[in-house]
């Protein structure tokens, strides 16, 4: 019973990671990835590693989505003038 919170967060991580892989559009993948960062931070916290969770929060909640979305925007902008945006 004491491990219920660990089981719940492990399940959440598994489901979110699967959803991140199953999505095809990079923008939607970035949305799922930011939630995955949150859920991973909770998992690290319930496994009594809050320092790892802290850095995971800092990287996963704002930095990873920003990098992915900037790259997606750059790629789209570069593809547009040539042949209608691949």
């Amino acid at each position, binding site marked *: 019973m004491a491990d219920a*919170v660990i089981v719940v967060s492990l399940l959440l991580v598994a489901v979110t990671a699967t959803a991140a892989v199953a999505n095809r559009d990079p923008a939607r993948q970035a949305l*799922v990835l930011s939630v995955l960062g949150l859920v991973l931070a909770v998992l690290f916290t319930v496994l009594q590693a809050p320092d790892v969770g802290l850095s995971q929060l800092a990287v996963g*909640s704002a930095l990873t989505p920003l990098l992915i979305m900037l790259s997606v925007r750059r790629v789209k902008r570069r593809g547009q003038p040539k042949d209608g945006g691949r």
Partner: protein
Amino acid sequence: MNDWNLAATLLLAVGAGAAVWGVSTGPLRRRVVAQNLSTSAVCPSLLLLAQGYDRPSYVDLALLLALLGPVGTLVFARLLSDELTDDPPRARGLTWAAAGLGAVTVVVLCAAVGPSRAMVKLLVIGALLIGGNVVASRALSGGFRGVRGG
């Protein structure tokens, strides 16, 4: 397992579960709303976990999340604005429900902690969480059209 951890587990299973389901299915406008509300579901459960484990330093995680979660949502609101102007997400009820959840959690934890510096810290986190949630939600539904396009 004490009551705080039980409450945190239930909040994670219901709130974060709903956020994961919402963010991985459906149209884009529902996904951004779910991403925004995942912060308001996870942050109170982190606060409850800190109280349940009796480790006041775990509260820092909730503080960082309350600060950075709305920043992540603002990133999406800015960089997905072309797709979101066509059908802007409307989630007024959900936003205020999430704000109420955060407020209730913070008030209950304040009552458990008692008047001290820790209580002021909890109040700061609660204000950051609710304010950030409302601002990010308003940015998603196009409330800041004037500042866009910079």
